[in-house]
């Protein structure tokens, strides 16, 4: 019995790791009901790196929050491995624009936070895992440091280690590098690609920086605002690791930017 089911699974194409199925979301504000997301469908394979790009207010962060389980969609569902998402879970790690590190804990304590919620680990094992991830983000010598002693880039690295430590299969990143200076950001592009390569995560990365999206994503998905819709999609066929300054990459970025502009323009002509 069991073996036949297995064979069937193997012959089929790998099921999507993450599926966004016709998600719609409204917000209620003083001016009335605003539609943040309109019928969004999206499918990610295991290990895929997808970037969501769009101007601010296009609902891409809202979509990420819904995938994380922090917000509920008004209609539609999120499926992870075919299971409906109803609340946040350890299978999905998240990184925010601000590092959101806890100042009452030191660096190691922050990385241990999620690990302590995983059952069946001894404290020695937890410590080992935490130190492994701090090493992965090159901050092992700062494990006893307080949060305020770190630079912006270091904070984001610790936040990355903290999100990775419970070993989620999916990593959700909400403009994590926006608040950093250009030099630090470029270093982090290298780091995140390296970590993605090593740990094989499925990543959804939200940004308004087209070049950043083209540098990191296997696919770049374009959002248009009010209501948030997917308006275009680009496959980025460049070998990795990519450097943000590559000429080829710039060509992709130009293409995406032009598409973004034309979508914005079309909409303003229609009067939206």
């Amino acid at each position, binding site marked *: 019995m069991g073996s036949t089911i297995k064979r069937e699974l193997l012959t089929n194409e790998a099921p999507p790791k993450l599926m966004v199925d016709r998600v719609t979301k409204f917000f209620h504000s003083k001016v009335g009901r605003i539609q943040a997301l309109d019928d969004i469908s999206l499918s990610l394979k295991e290990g895929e790196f997808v970037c969501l790009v769009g101007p601010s207010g296009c609902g891409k962060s809202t979509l990420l929050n819904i995938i994380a389980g922090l917000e509920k969609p008004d209609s539609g569902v999120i499926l992870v491995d075919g299971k409906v998402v109803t609340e946040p879970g350890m299978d999905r790690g998240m990184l925010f624009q601000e590092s959101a590190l*806890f100042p009452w804990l030191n660096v190691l304590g922050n990385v241990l936070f999620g690990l302590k919620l995983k059952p069946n680990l001894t404290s020695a094992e937890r410590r080992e895992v935490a130190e492994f991830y701090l090493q992965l983000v090159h901050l092992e010598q700062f494990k006893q440091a307080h949060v305020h002693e770190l630079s912006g880039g270091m904070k984001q690295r610790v936040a990355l280690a903290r999100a990775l430590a419970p070993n989620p299969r999916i990593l959700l990143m909400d403009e994590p590098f926006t608040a950093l200076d250009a030099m630090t950001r470029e270093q982090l592009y290298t780091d995140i690609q390296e970590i993605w390569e090593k740990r094989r995560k499925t990543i959804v990365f939200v940004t308004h920086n087209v070049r950043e999206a083209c540098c990191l994503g296997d696919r770049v998905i374009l959002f248009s605002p009010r209501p948030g819709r997917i308006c275009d999609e680009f496959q980025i066929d460049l070998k990795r690791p990519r450097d943000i300054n590559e000429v080829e990459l710039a060509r992709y970025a130009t293409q995406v930017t032009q598409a973004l502009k034309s979508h914005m323009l079309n909409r303003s002509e229609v009067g939206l």
Partner: protein
Amino acid sequence: MIRLLKMSTFFLLLLLAWELVYRMHLYSPVLFPSPLSVGQSILDGFADGSLPEGIYITLRRLLLGYLISLGIGIPLGLLLARFQLLRDTLGALTMGLQNLPSICWVPLAILWIGQNEEAILFVVIMGALGSVIMSTQAGVQSVSPIYVRAARTMGSQGVHTYVRVIIPASLPTIVTGMKIGWSFAWRSLMAGEMILFTLGVSGLGHILDMGRELMDMPRVMGVMLVIIAIGLITDKALFGRWEALIHERWGTSKA
């Protein structure tokens, strides 16, 4: 070090000026004693045991009343932060009562409870409770939602989020409130002890007031100095470590 030197020089000069004014005989020595006689009075108080006993009684009342205030105030503050209904009712009441100087509770305490320890404790608790409740509530409500969101994505929920995220995140505000509560408790206790005498036990406030009755100015000033010293020492001893810890973790500057 230099700051300490400047500070001690200032206080030394103050003492010298005091002694000088005393020696100029501008005021009656009965009303304006020399610093030396004040010091002597403090020493006498320690020698005959009245001051150590007074300090003991006062500190015992203070600690007991304060701990009860924390025991009631912190849980209430947490509940207030959680429920809008409680904020609109109990919160509004607390806010209103905060306007009442704690000495105003003394007549009520005497009539309701009597001339006893419980009445004094009641005054101390009523003085300290409000600020503990209000700052606990404010601390919890001002916790940045990003911490809670981050914790939830790591699998934290319910009680765990409350104990591991919300309470530690609001600690700076809660400790500030505890500190204000402490100084309110101290002031209320002195007011209580000066008006409300209980038979056979005299706290510092009572000793101070007895000094007035006996026209014993050195004792009045001596006890005042002891009260100041105790206030300073207990504040440092109780909150110094906490504040240092919070400053270190949060990276806020030392005041």
